[in-house]
């Protein structure tokens, strides 16, 4: 499974890193989310999908 963040739509709500800290973090430089784990390990798949479902900007895409 892979996730990606649309950094133009991302507004730094940071819910993704709260929900899936192994998968997402905040980029200090621009306050946008970045992906830590590519591909996403199986153990983090559910939380990664949860993060995508909860992004207020719907900026996270999930594939595979």
């Amino acid at each position: 499974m892979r996730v990606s963040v649309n950094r133009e739509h991302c507004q730094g709500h940071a819910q993704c890193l709260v929900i899936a800290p192994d998968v997402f973090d905040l980029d200090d430089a621009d306050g946008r989310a970045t992906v830590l784990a590519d591909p996403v390990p199986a153990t983090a798949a559910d939380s990664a999908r949860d993060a995508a479902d909860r992004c207020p900007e719907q900026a996270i895409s999930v594939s595979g």
Partner: protein
Amino acid sequence: MTAESAAPPVFCAAHLLDSWDERHPQRAFAELAAQTAPSRPDGTPVVAGREELAEFLRHPAVHATDGVHFNLGAQRPLIPLDLDGDVHRRYRKLLDPLFTPKQVARLEPMIRARTDALIDGFAGHGEAELMSALCAPLPTHLFIDLLGLPLEDLPFFLDFKEAVVRPQGDTVEDQQQNMRVAGERMYDYLVTTLHERRTRPATDDLIAGFLVAEVEGERLTDTEIVDICYLLVIAGLDTVTCSLSCILAWFAEHPDERRRVIADPSLLGPAIEELMRFESPVPLGHRWVAEDIEIAGRRFAAGSTVEVVWAAANVDEQAHADPLTMQPARQRNAHVAFAAGPHRCLGSNLARLELRVAVEQFHRRIPEYEVAAGQSVTYLNYGVRAAVHLPIAFPVT
């Protein structure tokens, strides 16, 4: 002068629907979200659908203000709420790092301690009115702590908050005048505080942070710091007060769900998120359209002020399955209770932390409570939605 211009304005287009109900406004909001191109009686366009809202807020021609009229009694643009474009981004770049989940987590012990101290005031009574006893003072205490201000100034902040968020006045003009007067007092207070602070040794609080912060290599001016603090006062107090009141009112009336989150604290965060979606304490915001634009086939004329209804998008059945049902374990919950787009709530993670810790601590001290017998919860939906009267009873241990 017509009756309409003499009366306080209708707060939200949803209030005009037959389905409007102060206690359960969700039905009216859902109806609004389902309408095609809704508007207020005066023609002000309303954006209430989830998809449309997302697209609308992203458009570069959608601005915070018209550059002349600012939010809530402010004399100058509130920073960063009333700004746009590069100027806005610069300030957000400075402020966002102060409010990330990791940063605000440091405040958890203080939130817990303040909550406990307030509960001490009524835990032995077997009853309490939670808005006045907990929900109103808690965020104000925390705010004063955060900015390093003296505790005896608490009443001043509470009064100011009321004056600008729920302005008194029979007409729009009266309300705006009262807001302006309150605003001037707050500006004066902040300017005085800042002058004092510059003469004192460094403290470890937000104001100290602002004094040394830089935007593109330049320090913030006193005026900028005052404007930021003014915004924080408006944005950070009443919103959390009202959110907390809605959440506690809901748990008071849903004992099974309350017991569930007490038994498993990991359920509380998601439950609060779902309550934020369902209650949408901040129901709407405004934007101003700088050019003629088209969003999903709908035209917005240049110069339009638009009412953007978060509360409606949050119960849009196109975006949320069974939206009128509060589902504490709801999975897909991309709500906009903290808004979306460039002006998404700066303090959202601090608010989340305050709400979760306050509720958690409240439940540790008082796990069993209900609305006091013979009484009821009163909701107000003018400004921020709140359980303005929340009388509870509980066993005293």
